[in-house]
């Protein structure tokens, strides 16, 4: 419960950084998503964490800043949290592999949810142009930011819930 409470100001800060800074850093038309990366990193680092709660909180906060409907942002960030959880179970021996695979798959999930939402809203989205101009650059930026965010979330996670180290 404590983690969930702390995640509110934490994701609030990440959302503000996303809107103020990360969204301005573009490659072609793609931008990174620091909130998505934070959820994935935290889910992988803290296996007992309330990852669905983080997804809901992040989805709600991003929906305030974005013109995407609330359902879409919920779906994006819950999808990211679930992807990270599944990846952790599949690649349980290699957190780095689960981290990068989660980022890759989550970026694609986010892209498709946003595209479907826009189509539903009546906005024509050219598929191949979107893939080349938005999806690929977004993946590149996200992969570039993955490791710094992972290290940062590791420190934050240890600070929030320090675990006793067991020495054999």
């Amino acid at each position: 419960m404590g983690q969930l409470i702390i995640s509110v100001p934490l994701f609030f800060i990440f959302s503000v950084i996303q809107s103020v800074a990360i969204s301005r850093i573009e490659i072609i038309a793609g931008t990174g998503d620091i909130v998505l990366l934070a959820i994935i990193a935290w889910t992988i680092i803290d296996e007992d964490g309330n990852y669905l709660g983080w997804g809901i909180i992040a989805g709600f906060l991003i929906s305030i800043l974005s013109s995407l409907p609330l359902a879409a942002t919920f779906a994006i960030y819950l999808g990211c949290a679930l992807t990270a959880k599944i990846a952790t179970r599949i690649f349980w021996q290699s957190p780095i592999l689960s981290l990068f695979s989660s980022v890759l798959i989550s970026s694609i999930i986010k892209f498709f949810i946003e595209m479907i939402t826009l189509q539903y809203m009546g906005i024509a989205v050219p598929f191949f142009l979107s893939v080349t101009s938005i999806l690929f650059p977004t993946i590149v930026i996200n992969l570039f930011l993955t490791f710094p965010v992972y290290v940062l979330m590791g420190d934050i996670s240890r600070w929030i819930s320090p675990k006793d180290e067991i020495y054999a």
Partner: protein
Amino acid sequence: MVVVGLIFLALSGILRPILGMVMDPFIAFQRWTSERFMVLYDFFTLPRDVTELLQRNAQLENEVSNLQSQVIQLQEQLRETEVLYSLLDFARARPQDQYVAAAVIGQDPSPFLNYIIIDRGSDDGIRYGMPVVTQQGLVGRVDAVTSSAARVQLITDSGSVVNVKFQNKSESAQIKGSVTGEVTLDMLSQTATIDAGEILLTSGLGGNYPVDILVGQIVRVERSANNLFQSAVVQPVVDFKAMRAVLIITNFERTNIQPLLPDLG
């Protein structure tokens, strides 16, 4: 008598060799002692001076960094002042409109959407649909409002459609945004002759924007005999990436023409 005698001998210079014999070793010893003492003195005092110098150096470096940050702050203020002066010039050039200035404080987190967030809301008189401009030209319109902030849909957004006209021609057309932020001119009659470099202004049709606001410039015309309309690539006059402040036209009454449109369903 002895004293008087010694003074006399000293004044006459007779005692000089004797005094020299006594004084020379004394002075030599004093010089030697003085040199060693100064070495010791330096040894003990110089580190203290170095420490003081280091402290002073740190103080001065602190002052330099403070002054540098002040310079950066002042440069930032100067830049903001320049932006505000430009906005003021624009506002003076259109005295019929009332404006509220706002700072750009964020962007939509989604790469598909071209929206900005500004720091003025309904408490400042901002309402849904109000046009947003800069000193350069049209930015977009207010899409959502809270009490202290608002979200503005840029003309580059894929959901944005603006009715435009040419500065030196009678033809009207529409400009549309896209997911990549490119702006294209559409719905222009095949009979119209347009060239690159022509200036586009808002036409006021549709009632969403005031008339005669600068929008952009034609970059490339794409004409095809198979299409119903001509299209063109448009370069907006506003640099959306470098945008720091905007003006919201608060006295513009948006006209809702929806009920007048024929129901095709």
